[in-house]
């Protein structure tokens, strides 16, 4: 291979997936105490930047990963749905913590029994709250899923 004529061959899907999985812009939808854990995992000590998922965007229009962090009740469910609808494709959703996953122990009049009743979810992270390591594992699982999926080009 000469210096001028260097090239690599790959599938379009693979290279688009590779670039997408390392540029996750997170929208933190923080409603409860899991937010502390999200702050911990996204700051310097655990350094989500290593996964290309460090930068929180506080507008859904500029983000592609919706992290629902905390309990979602029926009063805020329309807001969650609107935020999700405003995100541009491609977009992914992580249910952060057991309340977002299944309602947790809030099996009562107020709480949505898992955000997948409102919007589709890609990765569920259990725990009350999850350890930062669990969150990082969830992000790595999502990256695997993104890399392996058929890439829609818009």
């Amino acid at each position, binding site marked *: 291979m000469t210096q001028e004529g260097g090239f690599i061959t790959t599938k379009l899907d693979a290279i688009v997936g590779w670039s997408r999985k390392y540029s996750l812009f997170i929208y933190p939808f923080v409603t409860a105490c899991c937010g502390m854990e999200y702050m911990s995992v996204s700051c310097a000590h655990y350094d989500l930047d290593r996964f290309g998922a460090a930068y929180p965007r506080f507008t859904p229009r500029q983000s592609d990963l919706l992290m629902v962090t905390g309990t979602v009740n029926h009063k805020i469910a329309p807001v969650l749905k609107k935020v999700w609808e405003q995100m541009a494709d491609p977009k992914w959703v992580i249910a952060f913590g057991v309340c977002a996953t299944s309602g947790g122990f809030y099996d009562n009049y107020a709480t949505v029994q898992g955000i997948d*009743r409102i919007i589709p979810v890609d990765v569920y992270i259990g725990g009350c709250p999850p350890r930062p390591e669990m969150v990082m594992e969830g992000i790595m699982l999502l990256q695997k899923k993104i890399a392996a999926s058929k890439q829609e080009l818009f």
Partner: protein
Amino acid sequence: MSVETALLKLIKEKFSHYIISTHSFRNDDTIVINKEALKQVMSFLKNDKITQFDMLIDVTAVDYLGSAPRFEVVYHLLSIPLRQRLRVKVPITEEEPALDSVTSIWPGANWFEREVFDMFGIRFNGHPSLKRILMYEQFEGHPLRKDYPLKKQQPIVPLRDVKTKY
């Protein structure tokens, strides 16, 4: 029932007609009063030199479903200058779940009374804006009443069908 404190003695003497009972469990003074005398007793407790209960800590309610009267509205008072506390309970019947608002005495009662209205359906006459504070407007019923079904939910957005696999 322990020794009656000076505070309870004073209130009992002043409002003997309206007081249903009093007790003082481990210096935790409590009076139970008629709802007709609520405002009169409360403004005395706030303004009198001997009591000076200038702070309303909380207003809440209890649903004793199956017994009459069904509800009891509970007020917690604190006197900051005199460093004493008092609990005031007001029995409320199921047929007429309403009593006077104390927002004219303590403005801080506004949101407490809205919460009690939201959760128990007890109305406060004279409240400036008695509407739901925690639940949404479309919500039907009052969730902390004991006859509200434990897991009954009232979603605003239609729920997706989720097939659960174990």
